[in-house]
């Protein structure tokens, strides 16, 4: 029979075939990983529930109202501010170092790993916007508020657990920090504000 054994398979076209596959995948797929700001929406309002339930009422001092009009002007409490100032305002409000009576009330809490401390966990950051505001401005506000929370948590991680950041803490430590600074951003029922 054949002295040289099996004839070799011609593989010169394998490269072309795999090139074609490669190009197909390059076209139909996308490289970019999706990133975004994660948020949680409140459940829909219960029609059976009374509007002014005493239990659901939040004290005036515990709420930081951030409002935006159709021109993207920003109001925090009752002063006009720029979005760059917002983060520090929110941080100041949540921390309430001097126990300011206009800022959220403090009450004692026993948090594992941290111990007996005064926290402002009843605070609420309320964001309200006009239907004419731009999404960019709204997103920036959300981003700044989340940034305020993240910085507060990082600060606590540094002072309490001597870690570089919140992300470096263990699960239990992160839970304690979250209990100390719970993220409470409310998105009020939409309203139409004026503003020209």
């Amino acid at each position, binding site marked *: 029979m054949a002295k040289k054994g099996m004839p070799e398979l011609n593989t010169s076209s*394998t490269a072309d075939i795999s090139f074609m596959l490669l190009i197909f995948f390059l076209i139909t797929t996308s490289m970019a990983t*999706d990133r975004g700001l994660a948020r949680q929406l409140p459940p829909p309002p219960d029609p059976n529930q009374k509007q002014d339930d005493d239990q659901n009422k939040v004290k005036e001092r515990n709420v930081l109202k951030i409002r935006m009009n159709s021109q993207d002007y920003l109001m925090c409490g009752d002063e006009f501010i720029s979005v760059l100032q917002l983060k520090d305002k929110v941080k100041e409000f949540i921390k309430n170092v001097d126990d300011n009576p206009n800022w959220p009330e403090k009450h004692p809490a026993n948090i594992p790993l941290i111990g007996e401390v005064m926290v402002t966990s009843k605070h609420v950051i309320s964001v309200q916007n006009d239907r004419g505001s731009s999404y960019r401005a709204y997103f920036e506000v959300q981003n700044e508020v989340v940034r305020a929370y993240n910085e507060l948590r990082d600060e606590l991680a540094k002072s309490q657990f001597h870690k570089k950041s919140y992300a470096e803490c263990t699960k239990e430590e992160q839970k304690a920090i979250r209990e100390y600074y719970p993220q409470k951003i409310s998105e009020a029922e939409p309203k139409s504000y004026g503003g020209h």
Partner: protein
Amino acid sequence: MPAMNTSSLPDLIFSMLFFFMMVTTMREVTLKVQFRAPQGTELEKLEKKSLVTFIYVGAPTKELQKKFGAETRVQLNDKYAEPADVQDYATQARMDMKEEDQPFMTVSLKIDQDTKMGVVTDIKQALRKAYALKINYSATLRQ
């Protein structure tokens, strides 16, 4: 000249192919709206593509603008839709998921930064009604 030995070329290409297959994800819909995502600093990565439902909002793409105008549109799957349709869409998307995955359903909102909040609010209200409460505002990292 002796011919160059190209027998390892297919292997090289194959390894490139595998690399791309691993790091990229399939594009599921053709975009009918154009959007530029807003920029933020506090972003989280969107894990587990199978749990994510996408909603695109923006002006129609250049070619489609002749037909549909430049008004902001909402895109669900491959079609334009009204903000009112979002509730059914989100409910349907949840029904299509495995039962154990349903509580982790996330809706990724890919919204053009020049969109007016009116549309966004309508979508958010619709999502609340559909109990799709975990949302993610898609954005790019600010350098």
